[in-house]
C-alpha cells in the first residue's frame, strides 16, 4: 500500500536522464521532487505513471492506482467545467464532482466552457480532476503553475485532505507549494554517460 521505487533509471528518446533512484512514499505521505530544468522530473513521473517503461530498476505499487497531473491537463475546450469533471469521474469509475468543484472553488464556473477559462482557472480545473479520480497516488508535475496565492492555498489543503485520507502524493515543482513535506533533489542522480545501457549503446 505504498509506492516504492528501487534503483530506477529513466530516459527520454533513448538517452538515460536519471539513474540509481530509490525512494518510497508511504500512505499519508507526500514527497516533493526538486531539480533544475531538464533534470528529469517529468520523465521520472511519466515512468512511475507507467507511460514509459524504466531503463533499469523497478516501480512497485503504482499500476492502476495513480492519477497523473501533467503539464497539460487533458481538458476539452468545448465541454463545460462540470462536463469535463463528470467525464473523468466516470472514466475512473467514480461519481459525484461536487466535492472537487467546491475544493477548488469552481462552483461559479461549472457551466462555463473550459476553453473560456483563464490560465489559472484552467489549472484549477485540471487539479480538481485529480480529486474525482479517487486514485490513492497522485503524481503531480508543477501543479501550482499560474495559480494565485489563494488557489495555491486551496491546492495545499486539497493535498493535505488527500494525505489524511490515506493517499500519497509525488509532486515535482520549482516553486513553493505551501505544503510541508519531504524533499528529494534529483540532481545527484543525473545519469552519467554510459552508466546504464542506453537503447543504442549496442552501436558503440
Amino acid at each position, binding site marked *: 500500500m505504498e509506492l516504492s521505487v528501487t534503483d530506477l533509471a529513466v530516459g527520454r528518446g533513448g538517452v538515460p536522464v536519471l539513474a540509481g533512484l530509490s525512494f518510497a512514499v508511504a500512505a499519508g505521505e507526500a514527497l516533493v521532487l526538486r531539480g533544475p530544468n531538464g533534470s528529469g522530473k517529468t520523465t521520472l513521473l511519466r515512468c512511475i505513471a507507467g507511460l514509459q517503461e524504466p531503463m533499469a530498476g523497478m516501480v512497485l505499487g503504482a499500476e492502476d492506482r495513480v492519477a497523473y497531473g501533467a503539464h497539460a491537463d487533458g481538458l476539452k475546450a468545448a465541454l463545460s467545467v462540470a462536463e469535463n469533471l463528470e467525464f473523468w469521474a466516470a472514466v475512473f469509475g467514480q461519481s459525484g464532482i461536487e466535492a472537487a468543484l467546491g475544493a477548488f472553488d469552481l462552483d*461559479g464556473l461549472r457551466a462555463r*466552457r473550459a*476553453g473560456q477559462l483563464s490560465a489559472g482557472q484552467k489549472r484549477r480545473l485540471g487539479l480538481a480532476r485529480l480529486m474525482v479520480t479517487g486514485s490513492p497516488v497522485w503524481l503531480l508535475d508543477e501543479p501550482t503553475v499560474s495559480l494565485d496565492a489563494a488557489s495555491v492555498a486551496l491546492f495545499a489543503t486539497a493535498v493535505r485532505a488527500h494525505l489524511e485520507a490515506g493517499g500519497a502524493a509525488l509532486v515535482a515543482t520549482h516553486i513553493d507549494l505551501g505544503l510541508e513535506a519531504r524533499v528529494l533533489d534529483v540532481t545527484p542522480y543525473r545519469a552519467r554517460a554510459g552508466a546504464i545501457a542506453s537503447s543504442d549503446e549496442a552501436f558503440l
Partner: protein
Amino acid sequence: MWIAGCFARGYEDDMSLWEYANPVKFLGLSERMLPWLWGLAALCLVVGLVWGFFFTPDDFRQGSTVKIIYLHVPAALMAINAWFMMLVASLIWIVRRHHVSALAARAAAPVGVVMTLIALFTGAIWGQPMWGTWWAWDPRLTSFLILFLFYLGYIALWEAIEDPDTGADLTAILCLVGTVFAVLSRYAVNFWNQGLHQGASLSLDKEENVADVFYQPLLVCIAGFVLLFLALVLYRTGTEIRVRRTAALIKRERRLA
C-alpha cells in the same frame, strides 16, 4: 470591419428606420405584425392552391402533373430570394453592427433550406413523368443543389461558433464570398451542360410561357409563399433575439454575483 462598426455606432440614433434595429423595439413590432402575416399567408396559400389544384384544366401534354408547379415554382423562387435576403442582412450587420440583422440572417437560413428541399422534391416528383428520371444534371437543378450546399455550410458555421458576435462576423463574410461563388458556379454550370429545364417562364418574352389559366393562381401561390417566408423569418428572428437576451441576462447575473 469593426472600424466601420464603431463609426456607425457613433450616430445610430438619428435615422428613424433604424429605430427598429434595437432588439426590444423590434420584438414589439414583430409581435404586432405577425398575426396579420400568418393570416394573409394562410389565406393566399389556401386560395392559390385550391384554385390551382381544382379549378384549372389539365395541361394537354403534362396532364395533371403540371399542377406541381404551384408548389415548385414558388418554393424555388423563395429558396433563391431567401439567400439574397440573408446577403442584405449580412451587409447591414457588417456596416452598421445591428444585432437584429445578423440574427435575421441566421433565422432565414433554415427557412431557405426547407424551401430548397421543397423545390428539389417537387421538382424530382415532376421530373419522373416529364423527363422520365428523378434527377438529371441539368444546370438549373445542379446550381440549385450547390445553393443547398451553401445553405448547409452557412448553418454549420453558425452552429460551430460559440461567441455570437464572432459567429455573426464570420457567417456574414462567408455569405458575401459565398454569393460571389454561387453566381460564378451558376454560369460555370451553364457552360458545363445545357439542360432540359424550363427557362424563366415568368419572364415576359411570350414564347415558351405558362398559359394564363395556370399563371394567375401561380402568382397567388407565390404571394402566399412570400408572406409565409416573411412570417417565418420574423418569428424565428424573435426566437433568436429571446435566446440571445436570456444569455445576456444570465451573463449579467453571473457578473453581479
